[in-house]
């Protein structure tokens, strides 16, 4: 936003670039997505609402949102930790770990799902240990959280890492020289600076988790009302050739994603402005 106060039209190419952007966005994203509304509109308002808010659909939203939230929270805490140890400390294998972090992003979701199920089901490497503790990991809501944590793992790390790297050591030194303890420095000085990035990462992981399908269906057990996610409910409707019903639920999920992403972007915009004005 450094261009904010300058004459905005000095540079050429506004029409070309914005025109191309809008055309491409319209053709590939907006127009196809608008068909969801078109199709679900065939239901009419009353029925749309009835279909989108059946107890089973509500349960699916609850599970999807709840599991996504928990998974994103886990990723927020540990992602922050991981970003910290990756930027602040030098240790063996650091670079290798750094490269591994993005893997969940690149791996086909079905492979992730199968691998996680193999590990966390009751005869798996970790699952058997949990079973001994009386915890059923796979085929329960925990399984959904596991899958969503896996696929959301890179986001907090990758948003916080660059911010941590750019922090000026002088600030910390100044605080320390004024007698602040290490924890106080982190808590009072560092945390406020990395908080926007952390929240962005959290929201990204959350948004990604909302839509996830491939990895979850393998590990969740797919029990209606208990471990059935919204994407699966859409699939179920499609199997009955109920396109309007499927799109009704899709519209609800789309709305949730949109609101969430809008919040992220406003948050980022706000943080940026805050930084510039400071």
């Amino acid at each position: 936003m450094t261009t904010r106060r300058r004459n905005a039209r000095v540079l050429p190419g506004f029409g070309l670039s914005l025109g191309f952007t809008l055309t491409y966005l319209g053709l590939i994203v907006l127009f196809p997505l608008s068909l969801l509304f078109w199709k679900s509109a065939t239901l009419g308002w009353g029925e749309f609402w009835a279909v989108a808010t059946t107890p089973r659909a509500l349960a699916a939203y609850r599970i999807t949102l709840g599991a996504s939230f928990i998974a994103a929270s886990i990723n927020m805490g540990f992602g922050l930790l991981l970003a910290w140890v990756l930027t602040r400390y030098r240790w063996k294998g650091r670079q290798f770990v750094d490269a591994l972090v993005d893997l969940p992003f690149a791996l086909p979701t079905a492979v992730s799902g199968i691998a996680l199920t193999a590990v966390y089901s009751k005869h798996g490497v970790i699952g058997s240990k949990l079973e001994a503790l009386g915890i059923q990991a796979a085929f329960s809501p925990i399984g959904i959280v596991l899958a969503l944590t896996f696929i959301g793992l890179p986001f907090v790390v990758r948003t916080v890492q660059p911010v941590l790297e750019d922090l000026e050591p002088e600030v910390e030194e100044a605080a320390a020289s004024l007698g602040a303890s290490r924890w106080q420095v982190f808590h009072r000085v560092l945390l406020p600076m990395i908080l926007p990035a952390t929240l962005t990462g959290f929201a990204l992981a959350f948004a990604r988790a909302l839509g996830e399908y491939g990895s979850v269906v393998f590990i969740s057990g797919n029990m209606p009302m208990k471990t059935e996610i919204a994407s699966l409910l859409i699939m179920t409707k499609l199997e009955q050739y109920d396109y309007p019903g499927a799109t009704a639920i899709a519209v609800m999920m789309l709305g949730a994603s949109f609101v969430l992403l809008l919040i992220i972007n406003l948050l980022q915009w706000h943080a940026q402005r805050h930084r510039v004005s400071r």
Partner: protein
Amino acid sequence: MKRRILLALVLGALASALTLIADRAIPNGTAHAAVKTVLLNASYDPTRELYQDVNAAFAAQWKAKTGQNLEIQQSHGGSGKQARAVIDGLEADVVTLALAYDIDAIAKNSGLIAADWQSRLPNASAPYTSTIVFLVRKGNPKGIKDWGDLVKPGVEVITPNPKTSGGARWNYLAAWAWALRQPGGNDQTAQAFVTELFKHVPVLDSGARGSTTTFTERGIGDVLLAWENEAVLAIRVLGPEKFEIVAPSVSILAEPSVTWVDRVTKRRGTEAVAKAYLEFLYTDAGQELAAKHYYRPRNQAIAAKYAAQFPTVELVTIDGVFEGWPKAQKRHFDDGGLFDRIYQPGR
């Protein structure tokens, strides 16, 4: 400025056109497609191995008879998903699906297939049949012999989700049919039994193969409800020393249906070969192949030859007990149907 926007629009259109052109430019992996007839068979999951053999045998026969090179492509997936793909434009010449209902759905929703398709081939267009049996762990530790044993305390049952899997619908209906046959059995007791049965199901995979893997590889559950041919295949591939089959007293006659897709074959000029392909399934050679893959052949002589591998089970039909697929689907599996009620809260 206007010209620029126009230019941008053209650029955008070009970009999207590029993806279209690509389809024409890229050959389908067969460089000599001109001299080759290509047939696409859209089928459901458990028939992979069967159609691998059928395709090879039929292509050889067709070549001998007509001199034409024939390439048969396969597409597999859940039965309902495949039906939907055909409705939405998957150019399948023939469909070989898990249940007549899915082919009916194609006929009804798209008109690609004539409404009277079921009467076009013998045996209501089901060249081979199967049934639902139990796959249990070796030695049958839970002592499961019949449907009634599935709801004993501590027994875990694995079946796919009837909402998303054709095979699972047969499972459900077979259980229902058994309960009806019990002394004093009626719709209420049947519903109570099926409800109880699904309370013993810890995992509802979306497809038959998913359930088999859950049972065999993940070690979940005590009994897997499966197509007979799937159960046999699972034993052969995944370990004869680990599993065994239990045949219940009553089960359902599962009739996987086949037909050609009229509009597609007409347009592609594959009517004759598509028809011949499906008729091949009824020939002795086709029936032998079906039996080899543990589908029950229709041909009596061949059925007798392979009788040893098929346990005797009393088989009821969907028409006899459930008045046909459309009614069964509507009553049991559609949204708000009896199956959904099992999972409704407060029960």
